[in-house]
C-alpha cells in the first residue's frame, strides 16, 4: 500500500525510462481506443454535415428552445478545462508539489477540452460559415461585432484562454521535450528538436523559466475565473428567469473546478492503469485530489442550494416558477439525478476506503461528471421551457443529431488526448525529478539547510549577488 506521494529513491533514469516508454509504439488497445474515438467523431461529423445541409431544426431545436444541449455541453467542456488551471497554476503558486506528477495531463485536458468546447458555439450557429463575424477585424464595411454581447465576450475569453493555456502547457513541457529530443530518433527527434526550442537546461533558461511559469500561473488563475464567469454571463446577463442569477459567476467557477477535478480523477485512473504509472500517480496523490474535489463539491453544493434559496426568497414569481419547474416539471428526473450526482455522490470521496479503491473512484468520478453535465443542461433547457411568456412554454427533447454531436465531442476530446499521450510526455519528467530531489533532501536536515534556502531568506552576512563572500562565512 502506497503511503508516500512518491518513492523518493526512484532513479532519475528510471523516471525518464518510464515516461518515455509510455510514448513508445502503441499497442493494440491504443489503436482500438483511437478507432472508437474516431467512430464517435465520425458520428458527430456526419450529424454536423447533415445539420449544416438541412438546418438547425434537425436536432429538434425549436421555438422557444433555441439553445439546448449544444450550449450545455459547451459549458461542460469549458468547465472541464478548469482542472488544468487549478492543479497546475494554483497548486504551483502555493507550492503543493504533489501536483507535479499529474499536472501535465490535467493541463493537456484543459487545452483539449477548450478545443472541444470551442467547437460548440460554432456548431450551434445557424450560419456557421459566417462565424468569423464575431471577431473584431478591420473590415471594408465598417462594421464590428457587438461588444455588448456576452457571446462576443465568450469569443474573446475562449480565444485568450485557449492561447494562454496552450502556451502554459507548452512552456511547462519544454524541458521534457528536450529530454524527448535527446532520446528520440527519426521524425520524433525532428519534431522535438523544433518544439524544445533549443532547451539545454542552463541556469539562464531555468531562471527565466521559473519566472514565466510563475507569471503564467498568475495570469491563468484570474483568466480561468473570468472565463467561466463570462460563460455564466451568457445566462446571467439575460433577463430570463433561472438564468438571471447574481450568484452564477462563482457558481459556474465552482462547477467548473468541480467537473475539472472529477475529470482528473477519471483520467488519473485510466492513465495509471494503462501506462502503469503506479510509481508516479500514486494513491496518496489520488487521495489528495479526491479531498480537493470533495472540498470543491461542497462549495458547489452550497452555491447550488444558495441559488435555490435566493430565488426562493426573492420576490420574482417568474423565477420561482422556473425553479419549481425544475423540481417538479417534465425535466425533474434529470434535475434530481443532477442533485444526486452532484451533492450526494461526492461524499464517497470523503470516505478513505472508497477513496483508495480505484474502481469505485472511477465510477464515482464518472457520476460526478454526469452530474456536472446534467447541471448545465438543467440550467439551459428548463428556463427556455418555462420563462416569462406562458404561451411559449414547451417541452423539447433533443433529437438524435444533437446527441450525436455531443457524443462525438467526447470522441474528439478522447482522440486529442490519445494523440497527446503518445506524442508528448503525459507525466512531467523534470518536475517528478525535482519532487524526488526535494523530498529526498527534506529527510536530510543538513542538505535541507544547505539547499532549501531561497534567495529571499538570505542569512545575515550574505552580500549582494555576484560579490565574493568574505572568508569564513
Amino acid at each position: 500500500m502506497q503511503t508516500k506521494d512518491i518513492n523518493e529513491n526512484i532513479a532519475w533514469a528510471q523516471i525518464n525510462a518510464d515516461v518515455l516508454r509510455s510514448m513508445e509504439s502503441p499497442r493494440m488497445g491504443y489503436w482500438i481506443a483511437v478507432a472508437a474515438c474516431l467512430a464517435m467523431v465520425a458520428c458527430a461529423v456526419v450529424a454536423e454535415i447533415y445539420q449544416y445541409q438541412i438546418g438547425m431544426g434537425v436536432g429538434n431545436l425549436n421555438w422557444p428552445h433555441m439553445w439546448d444541449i449544444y450550449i450545455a455541453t459547451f459549458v461542460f467542456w469549458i468547465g472541464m478545462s478548469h482542472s488544468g488551471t487549478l492543479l497546475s497554476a494554483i497548486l504551483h503558486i502555493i507550492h503543493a508539489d504533489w501536483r507535479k506528477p499529474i499536472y501535465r495531463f490535467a493541463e493537456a485536458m484543459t487545452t483539449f477540452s477548450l478545443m472541444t468546447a470551442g467547437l460548440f458555439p460554432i456548431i450551434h450557429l445557424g450560419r456557421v460559415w459566417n462565424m468569423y463575424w464575431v471577431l473584431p477585424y478591420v473590415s471594408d464595411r465598417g462594421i464590428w461585432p457587438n461588444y455588448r454581447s456576452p457571446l462576443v465576450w465568450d469569443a474573446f475569453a475562449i480565444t485568450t484562454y485557449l492561447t494562454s493555456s496552450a502556451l502554459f502547457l507548452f512552456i511547462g513541457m519544454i524541458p521534457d521535450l528536450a529530454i524527448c529530443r535527446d532520446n528520440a530518433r527519426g521524425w520524433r527527434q525532428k519534431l522535438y528538436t523544433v518544439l524544445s526550442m533549443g532547451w539545454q537546461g542552463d541556469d539562464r533558461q531555468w531562471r527565466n523559466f521559473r519566472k514565466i511559469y510563475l507569471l503564467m500561473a498568475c495570469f491563468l488563475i484570474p483568466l480561468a475565473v473570468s472565463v467561466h464567469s463570462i460563460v455564466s454571463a451568457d445566462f446571467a446577463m439575460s433577463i430570463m428567469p433561472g438564468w438571471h442569477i447574481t450568484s452564477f459567476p462563482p457558481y459556474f467557477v465552482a462547477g467548473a473546478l468541480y467537473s475539472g477535478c472529477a475529470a482528473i480523477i477519471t483520467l488519473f485512473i485510466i492513465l495509471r492503469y494503462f501506462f502503469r504509472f503506479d510509481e508516479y500517480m500514486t494513491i496518496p496523490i489520488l487521495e489528495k485530489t479526491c479531498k480537493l474535489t470533495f472540498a470543491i463539491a461542497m462549495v458547489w453544493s452550497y452555491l447550488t442550494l444558495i441559488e435555490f434559496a435566493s430565488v426562493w426568497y426573492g420576490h420574482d414569481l417568474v423565477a420561482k416558477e422556473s425553479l419549481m419547474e425544475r423540481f417538479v416539471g417534465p425535466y425533474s428526473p434529470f434535475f434530481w439525478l443532477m442533485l444526486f450526482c452532484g451533492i450526494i455522490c461526492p461524499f464517497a470521496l470523503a470516505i478513505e476506503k472508497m477513496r483508495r479503491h480505484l474502481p469505485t473512484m472511477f465510477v464515482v468520478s464518472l457520476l460526478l461528471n454526469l452530474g456536472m453535465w446534467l447541471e448545465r443542461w438543467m440550467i439551459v433547457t428548463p428556463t427556455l421551457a418555462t420563462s416569462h411568456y406562458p404561451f411559449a412554454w414547451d417541452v423539447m427533447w433533443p433529437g438524435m443529431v444533437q446527441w450525436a454531436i455531443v457524443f462525438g465531442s467526447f470522441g474528439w476530446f478522447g482522440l486529442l488526448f490519445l494523440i497527446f499521450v503518445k506524442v508528448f510526455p503525459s507525466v512531467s519528467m523534470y518536475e517528478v525529478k525535482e519532487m524526488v530531489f526535494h523530498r529526498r533532501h527534506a529527510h536530510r536536515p543538513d542538505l535541507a539547510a544547505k539547499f532549501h534556502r531561497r534567495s529571499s531568506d538570505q542569512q545575515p552576512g550574505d552580500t549582494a549577488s555576484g560579490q565574493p563572500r568574505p572568508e569564513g562565512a
Partner: protein
Amino acid sequence: MLNIRIVSKLFDSGMRVVSRRRGLMALLMACCLGLGSGVAQAEVPNAVAPKGTHSGEHVPQPIDFPHDIHADINGINCMYCHTYARRSKVAGIPPTSKCMGCHSVIATDKPRIQQLTEYWEKNEPPRWKKVHDVPDFVHFTHEKHLQRFVFENEGMNVENVDQVCAFCHGDVKKMTVAEKTKPLTMGFCVRCHEANEGPSDCWHCHK
C-alpha cells in the same frame, strides 16, 4: 440621425477617401484593399465619387446594345432611355416600344436593329441579362440617389447626369454592352455614404 453623423460634420468633407474619424483603421483598410486607384472622373459638385474598381466579365446579351453610339456619339441622356431611374428604385430597361420609337425609321438596315424589329414583331421583349446586380437583401433606390446627386444638387446640370451614373456604372459611354466596372460591394457603398453623408442605418439599404 445617429450621433455619429453629426460628429462627422465637424470635419470638412473634401477630398478624403474615408472620413477622418476612422483614421487609422481607414488607413489600414485602405492598405489592405489597395484602394485609391479610381478612374479619372469629371467633378460632380457637392459629391465625392466612390472609389473602387472591378473588372467585369463580358455578359452576352440578346442584342449587343451599343451604349457608346447612343450615349457618346449621339449624346443621348442616360435618363432618356432609363427613364424609370428618377422615379423608381429600378432604373429599368426601356420598353421595346421606346426603342422602336426611333428605330422604326433610323438605321433599319443594321443587323442589330433588324434583330430588335424581329422581337417587336413577335410581341416579345428581349430577355436581357442583368449586369449590375446587387444581392437580393439589398434595397437600392435609383430615385433617391438621383435626387441627391442630380435634382436636389445645386450646381448640377441634368445634362451631366452620366457623371453621376458613372459613380456606380463606370464610363458606360465607352462601352458597347454594359460591363461592371465598379465593385458594388457593401464597402463600396459605405465609403460613398460616409464621404457624402448618406444614411448609415442598416435598414436603409438592407431588407
